[in-house]
């Protein structure tokens, strides 16, 4: 599952990177900042990112997740800091929902 999720996250970053002409997203690796310090997305792109990942998770794994839930918003360390923290968080969400 972890590999599958990583692919979903990187593919989505790639797509948004192309669309917004954003080099950081196009060349993203695990440590790339999403919405943490030195963020590579504005709030609108983050909203798009979240909804595209939700859709891709559903398409590929047939699991419904709501990424921006109460927990994510109130977490001390935002899960949206880097690609790695986001992927870990997503994995946890999917495990919890199964």
């Amino acid at each position, binding site marked *: 599952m972890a590999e599958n999720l990583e692919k979903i996250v990187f593919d989505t970053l790639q797509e948004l990177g192309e669309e917004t002409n954003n080099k950081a997203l196009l060349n993203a690796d695990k440590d790339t900042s999403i919405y943490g310090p030195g963020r590579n997305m504005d709030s*609108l792109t983050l*909203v*798009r990112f979240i*909804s595209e990942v*939700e*859709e891709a998770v*559903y398409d590929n794994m047939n699991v*419904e997740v*709501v990424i921006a839930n109460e927990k994510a918003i109130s977490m001390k360390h935002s899960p949206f800091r880097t690609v790695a923290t986001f992927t870990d968080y997503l994995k946890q969400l999917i495990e919890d929902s199964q």
Partner: protein
Amino acid sequence: MKQVMIITGTRKGLGAALANHYLDKGHIVAGCSRSEGSIEHENYSHYQLDVADEKAVAQMVRSVARKYGRVDVLINNAGIASMNHFMITPASNVSNVFNTNYIGSFLFMREVSKVMVRKKYGRIINFTTVAKALNLEGETNYAASKAAVESLTKVSAKELGEFGITVNAVGPNPIPTDLINSVSKDKIQNIIDQQAIKREGTVEDVIHVLDFFMDKNSSFISGQIMYLGGINS
């Protein structure tokens, strides 16, 4: 052009009339209600759900988006009213009214917006009421829940503007449906007396406002609340 529309609360009342109207015009309509649906039409699909059920709403919107590839219009019509003196209103009643009227509208907007942003196009129309504008006594929770819907309309209009999505609300005056069945004649007359144009409303009056908000050319109209009958807030 054929529009893909989601209309909530289509089993009866205004929702059913609106769905039938837009189906007659050749549009595709997906509707919902807590009880079984009442509309049979080749371009209609019904989802039995409570609009406050987060998972069910997400599933419905996804299923519609998958089937048609887009959602052009969302009409958040499902709503319940409650008339009672606020001193004798139980908290459970407050939750019920807010769950359907506010949370239901919120959830549909959130899920549908995710689909609309992909096409950079969308028209969202919420339902408020003149009971909010007139601060009608005996309708604290109903009016307050619709005040919340109005704020949702105005704030989300700002957050969605960049995506080509407009958000507006229509506020009907009394229209004979089950919703106002239990309201006394005197009370209805009292509302009508406060209108600039003194008559009950009709489904056609509502449709006229919806058509205006839905129009492709209404791309510069967002965050607006339009009451019927010449009521102002």
